[in-house]
Structures are given as C-alpha cells and as structure tokens.
C-alpha cells in the first residue's frame, strides 16, 4: 500500500488518495490546446452540454412516462404536458435538444472534414465520433417511438421493414425485431429499454472513448500547422504565453468554450420557449393508428439525407446504397489519400469535393422530406447517385494532392 501522511488540508487528504492535482493537470491545466482554433472547436462542449440537457430532462420525463401502447400517448401529452409541474418544459427541452444535438453533430462533423481533423494519427477520433453518430441515431430513433404518435408508429413500421433486406425477404427478422407482426407492445417496451438504458450507456462510454482518442494526437488547428506541443507548452509555462502556440484547456480554452455555450443557450432556449414546434412533427400529435396511414411518411430531418439515398432506387439497389451511406463516412480517413491535414480551402480539388458533398447532402435532406413525385424524385435520384460518385471519386482526387 502507498505511504500516507497526516493530511494538511482537505485537498491534501484527497490528493493522497485520488491524486487530484495530477488529474487536474492531465485533464485541465496542462491539457494543451492549440491557440489558433476558432469557435467551431467549441462544438464538442456544446454537444456535451446538450447531451447533459437531454439526460437531465430525460430523467424527469422517465418519471411520468408510461411505456404502454394504451397509455404512452396520454402520459406524454396529458400527464407530462398538463399534470406535472414544468413537465412541458422538460418535454420541450428534450424534444428541442434531440433535434439541435444533430444540427451541432453535423456542424462538428463537417468541421472535422473541412480541416482534415481525421487524418494522420487522428483516425480514432474520427471513428469514435462516427460510432457516436450512429449510436445517437439509434437513440433518437428509439426515443421518437416512445410518444406512440402517428408518425412514431409509421416510422417504426417503415424503418423496421428495412430489416427484411428487400429481395432477401427476411420477414422473420423483422418480426423478431418487433416482437410482433406490426409495431405493438413488445416493440414499444424494447425500444423504451434501448432509449433509456442501453443506448445512453453506450453513448456515455463512447464519449469517454472520443475524449481519450483526442488526448495523444491532440486537437487539430485551423491552419493545419504541425505544433510541437512539448516545446510550446514549455514556452507557456515559462511565462511566454503570448508567443506560445498552445494554451491550457482550463481556463484558457474553457473560457472560449463557455462563451460559445452561452450564445448557444440563447438560441436553444429561444427554440424551447418560442419555437418548440420546429422539432416536433405535427403528425406525431395524432395518436398512433395502425389502420390509417399518414399521407406522407418521413423521418426526422436529420435522417432525411440517408432516407433519400434509399428511396429513389428499386428496393435492393436502394438498400445497398443505404448501407453504403451508413458506413462510408467511417472510412473517410482511409479514402482521403492526401498527406495534408490542412483546411479544405488549401487543398484544390478536395475543396470542391467538400462543398459539393455539403450541398448534395442538403439537397438529399430536402428531397427526403418532399413527396417522391415528378421533379423531386428526379432531383433525389441525381443527388443520391452524386453522393455515391463523390465518395467513389475521393481516393482518386486526393491521390495526387501535393504536400503543402
């Protein structure tokens, strides 16, 4: 056992047992962050705060929600919205944060792509981030089922149908997932478990992994500069803060994080109180009715782009395209053959690729919601093909990129 001396203070007592000074150094005061990063790098903290809001509001909702097909809708729309003090607030915080978290995830992802933050030693940051994205998607989808509204039910029907894998007709697999022939009690109860236990646990584990993945390769910067963190840290500690290229995480970068969080919260609470409906589909305020199909079935906005990659093709090709869209982002660090981890603006063809991908995904998102008729289905098909071609072209356009 280690040698313990009589503690001189509470801090000392804790320090001998928990090494809090060391933890503080590793996690905060000597966790070095490049100085030249902009507010987009604060999206990680914004996501952490949003996740915390989701967790806390979710816990309050969990106290009153009934995972029963007969009571679920009522428990959300009557009990929580009317009977429970501030239930409406928790629900709107939860509903709005569920949508906003995806907006920030997409900004976070595209920031990573733009600045090449997935390259050279940072692959695990990217891969763990993509795993988080997939888990968040499952979390969002399972949560969307819970109010048992009309769109919950039919989105559940459509999405689980995908598991029959088209021509393979694995109807048995679909029934196994649902626990019934159609979404019913077994389906609701298991999605409830996934949403409130298994997936949040997985998310918290993955957040840990994502942070850990950052520790050794360090945070990228907006100039793509290779920083010798040891040299720069010494300079900082010697008092030459102004010319050092690195800063402490706390309080230096944290003060910037918090500032961005502050402005983000104004936007967030504006939505919660005055535009709560932007994230809650009106159709889902009709109780689930298995005998009446809604005129248009579409997923939440953050799934629209991948839904639109599925939709314009025949069933089997659509599924292959959909599968491609789900995994291709994970492979980005290896598909990008260039030696540069610099902003896209300095990478010639890649820059064009980046903006085309962004615009293509916005077009896919829009077409995914619009009814698949006439011009919309043509645009959707072109955008879906363009998405696949962009990824196929990526290794070729980055292969010959000169070192900058």
């Amino acid at each position: 056992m280690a040698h313990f001396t009589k503690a001189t203070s509470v801090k000392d007592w804790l320090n001998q047992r928990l090494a809090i000074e060391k933890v503080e150094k590793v996690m905060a005061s000597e966790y070095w962050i490049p100085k030249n990063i902009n507010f987009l790098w604060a999206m990680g903290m914004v996501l952490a705060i949003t996740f915390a809001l989701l967790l806390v509001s979710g816990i309050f909702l969990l106290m009153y929600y009934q995972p029963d097909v007969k009571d679920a809708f009522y428990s959300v729309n009557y009990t929580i919205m009317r009977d429970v003090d501030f239930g409406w607030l928790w629900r709107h915080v939860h509903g709005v944060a569920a949508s906003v978290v995806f907006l920030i995830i997409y900004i976070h992802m595209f920031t990573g792509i733009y600045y090449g933050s997935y390259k050279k030693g940072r692959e695990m940051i990217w891969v763990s981030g993509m795993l988080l994205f997939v888990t968040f998607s499952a979390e969002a989808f399972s949560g969307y089922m819970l109010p048992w509204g009309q769109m919950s039910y039919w989105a559940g029907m459509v999405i689980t149908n995908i598991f029959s894998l088209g021509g393979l007709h694995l109807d048995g697999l679909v029934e196994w997932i649902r626990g019934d022939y159609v979404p019913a009690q077994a389906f609701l109860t298991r999605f409830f478990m996934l949403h409130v236990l298994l997936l949040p646990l997985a998310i918290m584990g993955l957040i840990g992994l994502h942070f850990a993945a950052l520790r050794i390769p360090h945070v990228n910067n907006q100039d793509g500069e290779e920083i010798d963190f040891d040299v720069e840290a010494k300079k900082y500690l010697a008092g030459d803060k102004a010319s050092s290229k690195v800063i402490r995480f706390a309080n230096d970068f944290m003060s910037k994080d918090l500032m961005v969080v502050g402005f983000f919260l104004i936007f967030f609470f504006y939505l919660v109180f005055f535009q709560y409906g932007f994230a809650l589909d009106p159709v889902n305020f009709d109780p689930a009715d298995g005998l009446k199909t809604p005129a248009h079935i579409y997923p939440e906005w953050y799934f629209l782009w991948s839904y639109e990659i599925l939709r314009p093709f025949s069933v089997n090709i659509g599924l292959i395209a959909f599968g491609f869209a789900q995994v291709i982002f994970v492979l980005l660090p290896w598909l990008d053959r260039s030696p540069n981890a610099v902003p896209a603006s300095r990478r010639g063809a890649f820059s064009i690729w980046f903006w085309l991908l962004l615009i293509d995904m916005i077009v896919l998102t829009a077409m995914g919601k619009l009814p698949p008729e006439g011009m919309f289905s043509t645009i959707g098909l072109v955008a879906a093909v363009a998405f696949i071609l962009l990824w196929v072209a990526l290794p070729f356009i980055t292969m010959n990129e000169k070192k900058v």
Partner: protein
Amino acid sequence: MKNKEPLILVVVVAFTLLTYWLVEPYAHSVMHKHVESEQFAYADLKPVSKTGNVANGKDLVMGAAACTGCHSIEKEGMPAAMDAVSAAASYGVNPPDLSNAGAIYDAKFLANLIVNPAHALKVEHKFDAAKGQMHPMTAFFGAGGDIDQEVADMVAYLKSIAISPSEVTPKIAYENACGRCHALEYENWTQIGEKPAFKFEKDALAFDIQVLEYKEHLTKYMGKLPPDLSMYIRSRGEHFISTFIENPQAHLEGTAMPRVGVTADAAEKVIEHLADAGDTKRHERDSIGKSVLIYSVIFAIFALLWKKQVWKDLH
C-alpha cells in the same frame, strides 16, 4: 492573421437556415394545400335584407316554424324533447340547444340555415333532396307571409335571447359549435356533455355506455366517428383549424363535416378552447421564456467578459 470567425459563423448560419427552410416551410407548403381564410364572410350565402322583429320571431320559433319540435331552448324554459342519445338515434346527432345560437353563429348563416340547411351547412353532396336524401333538419318554407321577413324575425329573436357575443366564453363556443360531434378528452368533454365525477363506479359506467351509444349513432350518421380534438391545436395548428371550421370542403372535399357557421369571434374562441386543451401551459411558457432568455443573455455577456479577461494575456 485576420479573424475569420464572423465569416465562418455566417456560412454556418446560412446553410442551417437554408436546410431549415427546405425541410419545414417549403416542404410543408408542397405537402399541404394552402387554404386562405374567407374572413367568416359566408359570401356565398344570401344576405339578410330585412330588419327582424323579435316578438314575431318568437311566435314563429315556438309556433309555425316548429323549431322547438326538435331544438331545446333551455334559456326560455323549453327543455329538450328527448335525451341526447335518443335524439341521436332519431336524427343522427343531437340537435343543438338554441339558447345562445344568436351569439355564436353568423346571422346570415342562421337565416340561410333556416331556409335550406343542407346548402348553408355545405353538405348538399350528402343530402340531396332530389335523391330523397333529406337533411334531418326540415327546411322552413314560410308561414304565409314574406319569408325573408319571417326568417329575419326568427334570427332577431335568437339574437335577442342569446348572451352578448362578448360573454361567449371559449368553452361555450366550443360546446355549442363542435361539442355534439367532437369529444375533447383532455377537457373531460364527451359528445353528450361533461363527464361528472360520479360517486359510484356503476354510475360512471352507465354514463360511459350512454356515450358509447351516442357515438354509435353519430358514427352511422357521419360515416366515421369525428375525432377527439384534444391535441388538434398541435397536430393541425390554428390556421388549419380556423379555415377548416370556416369551410371544411375547402380542405377536404366531400367530407361529412358541415360548415359550422360561427362568427369570426366565436371561431377564435373555439381555437382558444382547443389551446386550453392541448397547449395548456402556453401563458406560463411565454412568461418564463422571457425570463430565461434574459438570464441567458446575461450569462452570455459574463461568459464573453470572462473570455476576454482570460485571453488578454494569451495574445
């Protein structure tokens, strides 16, 4: 190096707004037909040209026009001839009590309703007299005098006994205009009235059986059971509800729902009642929202000042 952050922010916001516009306002405008409000003018109906005489109207309502054969006028001590369930069995739906009809329904609508119910209610596709499909409400063919004058008299009478339009509460407006077909579970409203708090379960069950029977007749009459409106303020929104009340056919051609014929003021009250059911906490939300936003702004200002202070040494 030049500070690029404002430009980056503009790019992020622009792409976000573009995406939002495409998936919300634009997509919904494509998916849902836009129906303009007709300002509750009932422009297709014949205007009331005569000035009504209340006393003569009363005689007609109670006498020659035989309104009270089916309609109760509780206010004037005329109770309903039968209970709601039996009335629904006879007519499909319980005929409304006329005590406050003059305050809730548009005068021109009432006048036209008396003369040609199927036309005023815009349900001629369902009740075509030529095919023998008579509307349960019998049209008034006149008592022998000037029919326009007689109708004006009856409307004047209905207006004279009704509470003043300013006294119409959201609840009264809803119960009169919508409540005989649409339940409002979240406000404890059934098609046969508010469900009382019963002491014995058997009484509660007896009430429920009455509601079920009423719903059965109503379903037969309408083709399907009209939906519970508890969440309609959220699932449909104000604009939809308002324009739907005004003219259901404009949204849903061929629907069995009649044009309700309410005044613009009564329609607003109906919507307020629906908001009371489905968006109960809206006033609390608005007032707390303002405080939270003020707090957030102050928090952001302090965060900004702290950042400036910390970064003073770093530049």
